[in-house]
């Protein structure tokens, strides 16, 4: 996969995003591009603004400045619920919001924006509405089988182990057939095997479905292992971006993660791109 120097048109372009809450600046002038098919990771110490950035991309937060364009469209003009239709799906950091929903229903919920029937047609359940429901159920069954979730399909999410819930959440996001997938800490709280398993799924998604993925994650081993490019945030600012190896060696990044002293023992950062101010 080619990296930042590519001449491809970015699928997502973020320019000078600034977010403030009651005087506190959560994000300050953050800019970056994500190329089609890329597995792009956003990392940074606790409180660096990663989740705020995700919330801007899924239109939960409104930035005070900046632009976001997705496939050439101005993302900030869309409502939260229109984002899904525009082709962006997101997984959630916190699970447990839908404890009674069965896995199959959760996936069908993910397909909400791909379906049409309203109260009247759904209530009568005749013709088009019935066909639509059947087809979409079949689609979700296939997706569940692919992710090894088929035997859990009728179980409420709340009764499943954490790892299965995480996987079901990813399946739900995929069910929307997005072109951009936002993954909010997909392996947080998981053991090594589970993490590797999910990482493999992400690589599959990238290579076989060609879906662009943006990943916020704390598990550095995973990020550095599978991401094409990495953006590092610290105190709401983008302090570095580039391929994993270069970012790991960037003194700014080491300082942000470990504190001042560790920097001295680091070899010079080389040609790391460190855009300190957007």
């Amino acid at each position: 996969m080619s990296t930042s120097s590519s001449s491809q048109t970015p699928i997502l372009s973020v320019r000078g995003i600034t977010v403030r809450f009651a005087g506190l600046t959560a994000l300050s002038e953050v800019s970056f591009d994500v190329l089609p098919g890329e597995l792009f990771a956003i990392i940074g110490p606790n409180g660096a603004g990663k989740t705020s950035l995700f919330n801007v991309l899924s239109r939960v937060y409104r930035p005070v400045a900046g632009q976001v364009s997705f496939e050439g469209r101005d993302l900030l003009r869309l409502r939260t619920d229109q984002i899904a239709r525009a082709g962006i799906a997101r997984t959630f950091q916190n699970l447990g919001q839908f404890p009674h929903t069965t896995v199959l229903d959760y996936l069908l919920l993910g397909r909400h924006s791909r379906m049409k029937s309203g109260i009247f047609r759904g209530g009568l359940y005749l013709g088009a509405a019935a066909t639509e429901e059947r087809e979409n159920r079949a689609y979700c069954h296939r997706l569940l089988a692919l992710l090894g979730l088929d035997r859990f399909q009728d179980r409420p999410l709340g009764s499943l182990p954490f790892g299965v819930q995480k996987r079901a959440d990813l399946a739900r996001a995929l069910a929307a057939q997005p072109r951009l997938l936002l993954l909010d800490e997909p392996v947080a709280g998981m053991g090594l095997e589970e993490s590797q398993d999910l990482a493999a799924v992400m690589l599959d998604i990238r290579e076989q479905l060609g879906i662009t993925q943006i990943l916020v994650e704390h598990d550095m081993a995973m990020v550095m292992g599978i991401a094409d490019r990495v953006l590092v945030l610290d105190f709401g600012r983008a302090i570095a971006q580039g391929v994993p190896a270069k970012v790991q060696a960037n003194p700014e990044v080491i300082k942000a993660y470990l504190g001042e002293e560790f920097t001295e023992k680091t070899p010079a950062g080389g040609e790391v791109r460190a855009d300190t101010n957007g």
Partner: protein
Amino acid sequence: MTTFIQLVFSGLALGCDYALIALGFTIIFKASEVINFAQGEFLLVGTFVVSVAMFTWRLGFFPALVIGIGVTSLIGVLFERVVLRRMIGRPPFNIIMVTIGLDVLLLTGVIILVGGRNPSSPVPFDTLSGFSIGGVEFGANAIASIVVTALVCLGLYIFLRYTRYGLAMRATAIDQEAARAMGIKISTVYALAWGISGAIATIGGIFLAAGAGNPSFDVTLGQSALVAFPAIILGGLDSIPGAVVGGIAIGLIYVLTQGYESGGFLGANFHLIAPYLVMILVLMIRPHGLFGTRKVERV
């Protein structure tokens, strides 16, 4: 002009009763995020007990009041301990309904004890006593209700501001886990909130029962407490000064509309909905009331 002053005075007195009722709601809500729909029935139970103590057991007003406050507070604390504590973390709808269940039980209990007759209003002064200045009637009990409300507010202020448990209540209302980290027992704070709320309900109830000189009250007393809802919404569910301001405002709106609606184009009983209309208007402009705080929902 005389009518206007008379109405403002009556509105203020009624508003003070509402303020007390609203305070009862707010104290519980602030401590535990529970809206107590049974608050009206706490009023009824408290007033009924005071009435029985005064007129059946022939006790004086103050000993009777103490018994009434004791009984209502005890019911509140028991309900919190036995039922509500197991409902922590449940959806608000269910919590509201559990308090409605209590409301039904308390109301039925009083109905069974009261039977067909109406108990006498237990007030410190004779229901008709008072004085008039320039044609405006100042009822003794109306004045008492204003004075008592002021005293209750002052007492509550001193309690919350200067005592150890008052501080614990304020801290718990802001951040429960942080309060627990200080060694504050949340269960004690809840029990305190329900106890205080029951006590205030009794005081509000006896003045509301006497109303505009009613010698007796019936079992619908609890329902008239529903008007406190617009009051707390107006003031913001979680604001104690808001409850007082909201209560007085609703009392004034209620009495003034009632005084001027007769023969008007607004039709009968407009005063019953005027508080709600004002409330809806406020909510349209400020969805969290005049003094309330906004909560942020998270993903």
